[in-house]
């Protein structure tokens, strides 16, 4: 009823190529951004439930945002360029440990401690370089075999950060703590500030990724994904397209890893970035929708929030079930939901969303 495009004529290619060509989408997005940037902090400041609890911001929204960012990175590689990688956790770890090293200074290279923002971005850059190196096999091997090769990255960096004490500044416990977060003189410490920081990063990177994906580079990635031989015959160099996807993807994942360590965890050890993390990101991207930025958010929300919701549900409706049973139920329901979704809609939530929008254009009329 309200979601009609009738009467919205586009008179220029720029208008047709806009990120949200439909007016209602633009308004909805603006409202969402306004709520996220201004509404949530205000509600938290005036202690309006549910935003008065630190728990919601610190333990639910913050990890959701950062993992969405990582999922965007994974989606660039797997969804847009079709190169299946199981090393995302490793690239997060590279981002985190490099940012830590840059932030605490590297005397061996005469590097003074760098500011937080520079450290995080340089962490992304390091992950990007590692991504390119581990992306080189993709020129020869494809599909499952490539994913096994990226698995090597995962195990190698797990080992490296655990065994080479230099990365942890010789911390006896092997775990390191993030230094104080400060950006241009502003200190980020409270949950609301951390939330705003993560939100800013996510918005900027999501916009950048979307722009790349719908530009020339993104089309080259998708061409390689859909039919690499035809892509080569129209002049796309597989080397450049694949490695640029690895570089961009790993950069985003590296930044997400640095944020995960600095902003969410605070102190961490290599276990935080093990193979489980890689698989979690892979599932997010598959369930959310391969080759869509929106899917990264939806997938992250599903994987992260549903277990929490499921564990809260029995108590909320007044059922008395033991915590052990709840945990088992959670696994059962979660697993079956994933199976159900992938059978009913293999293209994930983003596709469901799109179908819903198309249906909504006509609703409530039959045609």
């Amino acid at each position, binding site marked *: 009823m309200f979601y009609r495009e009738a009467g919205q004529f586009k008179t*220029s*290619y*720029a208008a047709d*190529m806009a990120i949200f060509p439909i007016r209602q989408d633009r308004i909805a997005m603006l409202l969402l951004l306004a709520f996220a940037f201004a509404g949530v902090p205000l509600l938290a400041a005036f202690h309006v439930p549910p935003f008065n609890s630190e728990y919601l911001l610190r333990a639910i929204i913050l990890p959701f945002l950062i993992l969405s960012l990582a999922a965007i990175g994974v989606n660039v590689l797997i969804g847009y360029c079709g190169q299946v990688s199981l090393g995302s956790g490793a690239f997060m770890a590279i981002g985190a440990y490099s940012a830590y090293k840059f932030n605490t200074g590297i005397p061996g290279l005469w590097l003074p401690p760098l500011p937080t923002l520079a450290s995080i971005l340089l962490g992304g850059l390091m992950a990007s370089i590692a991504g390119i190196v581990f992306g080189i096999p993709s020129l020869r091997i494809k599909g499952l075999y490539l994913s096994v090769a990226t698995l090597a990255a995962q195990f190698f960096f797990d080992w490296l950060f655990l065994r080479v004490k230099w990365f942890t500044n010789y911390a006896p416990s092997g775990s390191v703590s993030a230094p104080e977060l400060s950006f241009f003189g502003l200190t980020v410490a409270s949950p609301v500030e951390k939330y705003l920081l993560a939100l800013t990063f996510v918005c900027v990177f999501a916009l*950048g990724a979307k*722009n*790349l994906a*719908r*530009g*020339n*580079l993104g*089309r*080259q990635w*998708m*061409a390689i*994904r*859909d*039919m690499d*031989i*035809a*892509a*080569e*015959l*129209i*002049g*796309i*160099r597989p080397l450049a397209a694949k490695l*640029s996807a690895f570089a961009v993807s790993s950069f985003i994942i590296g930044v997400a890893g640095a944020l995960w360590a600095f902003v969410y965890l605070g102190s961490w050890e290599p276990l935080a970035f093990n193979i489980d993390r890689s698989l979690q990101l892979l599932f997010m991207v598959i369930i959310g929708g391969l*080759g869509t930025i929106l899917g990264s958010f939806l997938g992250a929300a599903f994987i992260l929030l549903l277990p929490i919701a499921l564990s809260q549900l029995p108590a909320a409706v007044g059922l008395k079930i033991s915590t052990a049973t709840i945990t088992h139920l959670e696994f059962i329901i979660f697993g079956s939901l994933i199976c159900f979704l992938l059978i009913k809609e293999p293209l994930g939530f983003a596709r469901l969303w799109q179908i819903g929008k198309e249906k909504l254009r006509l609703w409530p009329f039959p045609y």
Partner: protein
Amino acid sequence: MSEPKSAPAEALLSLENISLSFGGLKAVSDVSFDIRKGEIRAIIGPNGAGKTSMLNCINGFYHPQQGRITFKGRTRKSMRPHEAARGGIARTFQNVALFKGMTTLDNIMTGRALRMKRGVLWQLLRAGPALREEIEHRRFCEEIIDFLEIEHIRKTPVGKLPYGLQKRVELGRALAMEPDLLLLDEPMAGMNLEEKQDMSRFILDVNRRDGTTIALIEHDMGVVMDISDRVVVLEYGRKIADGVPADVQGNQKVIDAYLGVPR
């Protein structure tokens, strides 16, 4: 339909003594012919005659063991496919090779990939020069879409399109490259009469309006004889005839190759 060109134009591409084999199987042996600037050159022959292998040699997908390929005055033994694309050779495939997950428009826009020069940072911002470039190429692609009469499927993922339209989109993608030489591998396979007429019209328009040189493989003899300027006939990897359609039609070797020889 087509009149023979009065003065023989210079050769855009010439193939000399091309031989290609896969292990013990000789796909092409000692074939030479040329493609003149501005003509429609048909390559015909029974199944397995080596026609597609020939196209694959031309655009660098196969590397012939022997022979030389001269394109635009540059002679080389073999080249990489993306080098051929840069040189101005575009092609379509026997089995449609589109990017199935992308829309018609995006598929055609990939044909412009080589001509889009803005760096990653501009693309990241999608503003200023990058946006202007994107719009300029969009305009070019829209003209192709108009020409091929596929406006209505502009934003449909090509995987969902019927075969005839996919063939048309594939031609659009090749045209977006503004090629000097367009290789068409069975552009009319599996089409009905009307679709064939449309496709013939597009091919002739491209050839006459833009002056694009075209080499095509086709099994529909009516179409081949109608639209091509010169025809080369292959059989078992060897050239058995080469000339204007009328000559080829009357050639006894060609008739034997197609109809078989009574023993």
